[in-house]
């Protein structure tokens, strides 16, 4: 019992000692220095462009060469179908740079994170 008491006393002493010496270190340009030294990461934008181009190519190939989808009853004009399918692949490719810029510059993530914080 005495040993336990003395252990608790010792623990409290150590805790107080460390707590007293636990100082916050001011940034004083440290973060800026780190940010300047960060290497440039390779951009992954090429993935979007690659898949968009591949998608468009495959679509064109299917529509123009194989004529598989042209007999669909709802779409009689093959050009309309071409525009629709092409648009599905082109739209994300066009939207990506717009969304990226919007996210980087305008979107306030701190507001968004409030909704996520309970999880």
């Amino acid at each position: 019992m005495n040993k336990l008491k003395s252990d608790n006393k010792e623990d409290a002493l150590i805790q107080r000692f460390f707590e007293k010496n636990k100082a916050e270190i001011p940034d004083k340009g440290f973060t800026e220095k780190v940010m300047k030294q960060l290497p440039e990461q390779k951009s992954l934008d090429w993935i979007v462009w690659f898949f968009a181009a591949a998608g468009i190519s495959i679509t064109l190939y299917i529509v123009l060469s194989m004529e598989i989808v042209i007999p669909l009853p709802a779409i009689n004009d093959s050009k309309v179908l071409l525009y629709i399918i092409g648009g599905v692949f082109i739209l994300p490719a066009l939207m990506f740079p717009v969304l990226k810029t919007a996210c980087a510059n305008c979107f306030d993530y701190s507001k968004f994170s409030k909704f996520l914080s309970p999880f």
Partner: protein
Amino acid sequence: MSKADDFLCITRVNLLGDKTAFDQLTHKYQSSIRRFFLNLTMGDSQLSDDLAQETFIKAYLGLRTFNGLSAFSTWLFRIAYNVFYDAVRARKNTIDIDTAEIDKNMKSDNLFSTERADIYSALKQLRNEERTALLLFYMEDKTHPEIAKIMNCPLGTVKTYILKGKKMVGEYLKKEGYE
């Protein structure tokens, strides 16, 4: 900034290459990482800043490998721990040898009061592993399992390090008249 904010920042860096998100993470954790190094190096502020910088750069480069199973701070401290021991190995223990230089820093730098000198003297009594475990437990408020993850050793070993460290620091403090 909560853990959800950390996760959002990490996602922004990984998906959009958004450096400002990493700036926020660095700003949030710079104090604890620098303090951790400052205590490990016995108050060598120049060396601790260099090591902290290396830690953040390594974290940035390896951010895609962060799987989110542990907290970001635990993952960051694991990198810091590795950076410190790599430095110790690379310098062939000059961190221990350069105590004269460090003592000089402690006297000349206003940051290091008598109390701070006391904490370094207390930590000097300990082995590197005990010192690291004790600092993570008391200074950085890490739990035993988190320390085990950071130091990559069994939970029982961490508890032994802390127990031994506590005993030695306790004896030192009593000897120095702390109550």
